[in-house]
C-alpha cells in the first residue's frame, strides 16, 4: 500500500468509527421516559401500522423518537452550549449568562404588548375595587441585577410597568418592591441558577409588605441553609455544569404550630417538605411545590384572615406571614378552574379579610387569569 492510501484508510476508519460506535451505542441504550433536564416526556417508539405509514404519521414520529432517545442526549446538548460559550455568546436558550455566575432569564420588551398589559391591569383592578386587594408585583432578576447583565441586553422595563400598576390600583393598594430590591441588588436576593427570588430576597419583600400594611415586621434572623446542591430551571435551560445554589429558610417560621390542608384533602404540619431536597425540583421544598389551594391555620389569636392569589414567588414568602394571621389561604390560579368569587366567599366577604396579589411581573403578565 502506498503512503497516500494508508493515510486515506486512517481517515476512513476514524470517521466510520464515529458513526458506527454511536449507532451501536444508540441501539444498546435503553429508552428513557422522561428527561429531567428538559423537564418533559421524551418521545417513545411509535406504533407501526401500514395506514399510519401512508398517512405520513409514522415516519415523522419515528424521527422525533430517534432524536429524543439519542445516546448521551444531554451531553451533546452540553457540548453545543459549550461551543456557544466559546463563541462568546451571552444568551443561550432565553437565558443571559450574567456576571458572577448569574443566569438571568430573558424577557424581551416586544413580548409584552400594550394590549396584553391593559388586559391584565383591567382584571387586576376588579380585584382591587371589590376586595381592596393589595398588589405586590415582584420585578424579575433582569430588572434588578442590571449590573450583571451582558452589555446592551434588552429587557422588558418593569419599572415603567410598575409605575402604571401603581397609577391603576392607587398608591394605597400598591406595595413597592422594586425600590427595596434595587437597594439590595448587591446581595443574594435571586438564585444564580433559578428564576425565583431567594428567601433573603423574599424577606426584603416581607419587610416592604409590613411597612405598607402598617404592621411591625417580625425580626427574622436565623437564616439556615437546607441544601447547597440546588440547580434550578435556568441551569436546566442551558444544561451546562454550573455552580450550585443554596436554599435557605428562616428557622423561626418553623417554630410555630400550623395545620395545612393542601387542595382540601392532604394534611401537613409543616410548610417545608424535605423530600424534595433529594430531587431536581428543590424549590418545591417551600409549600410542597405547587397546589391550587393551600389552607394554613395558625395558633395565633389575631382574628385576621389573608387570601393570597399568587405564583411560585410566594412559596418562600408566605411562611414569613404566619405571625400576622389566624388563617392564610393561598390560591394558585393556574391550577384552579372554578369561579374566584365563589371560592373567596368561603373564607370571608369583601372587607372581612385581607387580600394579597403576589406575582412576579412576568408571571403576572403571562398567567394572571381568572373567572369571576
Amino acid at each position, binding site marked *: 500500500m502506498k503512503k*497516500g*492510501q494508508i*493515510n*486515506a*484508510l*486512517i*481517515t*476512513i476508519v*476514524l*470517521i*466510520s468509527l*464515529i*458513526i*458506527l460506535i*454511536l*449507532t451501536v451505542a*444508540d441501539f444498546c441504550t435503553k429508552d428513557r421516559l422522561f428527561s429531567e433536564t428538559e423537564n418533559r416526556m421524551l418521545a417513545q417508539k411509535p406504533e407501526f401500522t401500514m395506514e399510519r*405509514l*401512508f398517512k*405520513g404519521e409514522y*415516519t415523522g414520529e*419515528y*424521527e422525533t423518537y*430517534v*432524536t429524543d432517545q*439519542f445516546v448521551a*442526549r444531554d451531553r*451533546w*446538548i452540553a*457540548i*453545543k*452550549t459549550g*461551543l456557544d460559550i466559546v*463563541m*462568546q*455568546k*451571552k*444568551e443561550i436558550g432565553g437565558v443571559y449568562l450574567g456576571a458572577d455566575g448569574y443566569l438571568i432569564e430573558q424577557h424581551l420588551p*416586544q413580548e409584552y404588548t400594550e394590549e396584553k398589559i391593559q388586559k391584565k391591569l383591567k382584571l387586576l383592578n376588579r380585584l382591587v375595587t371589590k376586595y381592596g386587594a393589595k398588589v405586590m408585583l415582584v420585578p424579575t432578576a433582569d430588572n434588578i441585577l442590571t449590573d450583571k447583565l*451582558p*452589555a*446592551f*441586553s*434588552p429587557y422588558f422595563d418593569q419599572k415603567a410597568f410598575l409605575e402604571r400598576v401603581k397609577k391603576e390600583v392607587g398608591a394605597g393598594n400598591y406595595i413597592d418592591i422594586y425600590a427595596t430590591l434595587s437597594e439590595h441588588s448587591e446581595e443574594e436576593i435571586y438564585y444564580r441558577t433559578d428564576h425565583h427570588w431567594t428567601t433573603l430576597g423574599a424577606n426584603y419583600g416581607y419587610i416592604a409588605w409590613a411597612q405598607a400594611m402598617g404592621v411591625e415586621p417580625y425580626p427574622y434572623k436565623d437564616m439556615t441553609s437546607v441544601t447547597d446542591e440546588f440547580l434550578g430551571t435556568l441551569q436546566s435551560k442551558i444544561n451546562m455544569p454550573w455552580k450550585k445554589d443554596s436554599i435557605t429558610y428562616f428557622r423561626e417560621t418553623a417554630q410555630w404550630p400550623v395545620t395545612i390542608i393542601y387542595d382540601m384533602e392532604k394534611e401537613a404540619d409543616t410548610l417545608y417538605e424535605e423530600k424534595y431536597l433529594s430531587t431536581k425540583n428543590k424549590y418545591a421544598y417551600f409549600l410542597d411545590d405547587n397546589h391550587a389551594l393551600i389552607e394554613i391555620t395558625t395558633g395565633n389569636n389575631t382574628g385576621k384572615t389573608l387570601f393570597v392569589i399568587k405564583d411560585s414567588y410566594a412559596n418562600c414568602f408566605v411562611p414569613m406571614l404566619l405571625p400576622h394571621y389566624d388563617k392564610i389561604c393561598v390560591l394558585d390560579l393556574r391550577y384552579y378552574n372554578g369561579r374566584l368569587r365563589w371560592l373567596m366567599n368561603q373564607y370571608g366577604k369583601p372587607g372581612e379579610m385581607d387580600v394579597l396579589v403576589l406575582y412576579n411581573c412576568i408571571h403576572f403578565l403571562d398567567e394572571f387569569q381568572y373567572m369571576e
Partner: protein
Amino acid sequence: MVFSSVLFLFRFLPIFMICYFVLPKRMKNFILFFGSLIFYAWGEPIYVLLMLFSTFVDYFNGRMIEKFRGKKAATGFLIASVIINLSVLCFFKYADFLVQTFRSVTGLSVPLMKLPLPIGISFYTFQTMSYTIDVYRGEAKVQKNLLDFGVFVTMFPQLIAGPIVKYVDVEESLHDRKVSLEAVSSGMQRFCIGMAKKVLLANNIGELWSRISAMDFGGISALTAWLGIVAFAFQIYFDFSGYSDMAIGLGEMMGFRFPENFNYPYISASVTEFWRRWHISLGSWFREYVYIPMGGNRKGLPRQLFNILIVWMLTGIWHGAGWNFLFWGLWFAFFLSMEKLFLGKVLQKAGRAVGIVYDTLVVLAGWVFFSLESPAQILGYFRAMFGNAGPVDDQGLFLGREYLFLLMAAVVAATPLAGRLVKKLKESQATPCRVVYCVGEKLIPMSLLLLSIAGIVDASYNPFLYFRF
C-alpha cells in the same frame, strides 16, 4: 430525510453504506436505487410515485427519441418530455400562485388546491429534461437499462437539493465506476465539512435572521437591519453550499463525480461574476438549455439583453412561486444588462475592491426581495436599512456583540483563505507542515462531525431552506 439529522447519520447512512460496500458490483445500482426510494419516501410516501412516473416517462421518451432518430417523431417525443416535465413542475409548484394571481386580477373566487410541494421536484424534473434534450441532440447516448436510469434520477445524495447533475456528467459512472481509498476518504472529509457549514454556521447564523425578521421593521435600527440581512446571506449560502458539499462528498464515496455548485460567491466583484460562482449547476443548466438555444450573445446586443431578461426571470421564479422571486430575478437581470452595456468596463477600471462592495450591495438588496414576501415588508425593511428608526440601538449592539465571532467565522469560511492554507500545507515539503497537514486532515473533519452531531441533537431548529424550491 435530511442529511443533518440523527435519523440519517445513525440509521440510514450506516445501514445503507454497509449494504452498498458489502454487496457485489452488479448489485450496487440496485441497492442505490432501492435505498434512494426509501430515503425519498420517508418524507414523501405518496410523491415517490410521482418521481417514479417522471423517471419512467423520460426513460421511455429517451428510448423513443433514439428509435425515431432523424424522423419527426423524435422531435415529438422530445416535446412530449419537456411538456410533461414542465406541466408536472407547474402543476405542483405554480398552480396556486397562478390561481391567486388570476383571482386578484379578475376578482373571481377560484378555489386554491393547497397541494404540498413535492420535495426536490425542481431538481429532478430539470435533471430528466437535460437527459432527453441531450439524447435528442446526440450529446448523450440513450440509456437502455431502466435501473441505471432510475439511479440517475433518484440517487439520494443530490435528489432533494442538487447539485443539478446533467446526465452527461454521470453517464459513464452509472454502469461502471471505480472507487479508490483516496476518493472515499476525501468524500468523507467533504461530507463532514458540508455538515459543519449547514449545522454549525447556517443554522446558528439563521437564528439571528429569524429573530430579526420576526421584529417589527418600523422599530429596528439600521444596524439591526444590516445585521439581519447579512445573517440571511450567510445562512442561505452555508445552508445550500453545505448541502451541496455533503451531496458531492457522498457521491465521491460511491464513485460519482458531481459538478461543483459554489465557488466562493461572496468574493465576486460583479454580478456577472457572482452568477458564475453561485448555484453553478442551475446557472449552467439555464445557459445550456435556454440562453444558448435562444441565441445567447450571438445575435446582437439587444437580443442578448432580451435573453438575459428571460433567463433571469425564469431563474427567479424557479426559486419559488411568488412575485418577490420574480422580482429578485429581474433585479439581477437589470444589473447584468448594465454590466454588459457599460458598468462592466467601469468596474474593471475601478478595481476589485470597489467591485466587491458594489456586488455585495446588489446581492444583499437582492436577499431582501428574496427573503421577505410582501411588498410592505420589503419596503419596511429597506427603510430600516436606511436608518428610518435611527442608526444604532441597544438591540442591534447586543445582537452584533452576540454574533460577532460567528459572523467572523462565517466571513473567513466564505473566502478561499482556509482552502489556500490547506493547499499550501499539502504541497509543502517541510516536515512540520506535513505533520500538521496529516494530523489536521483527520482531526478537523472528525471534530466538525462531532460538533455537528451536538448541534443536530441540540437543535429543534433545523429548517432546510431549499426545500421550498
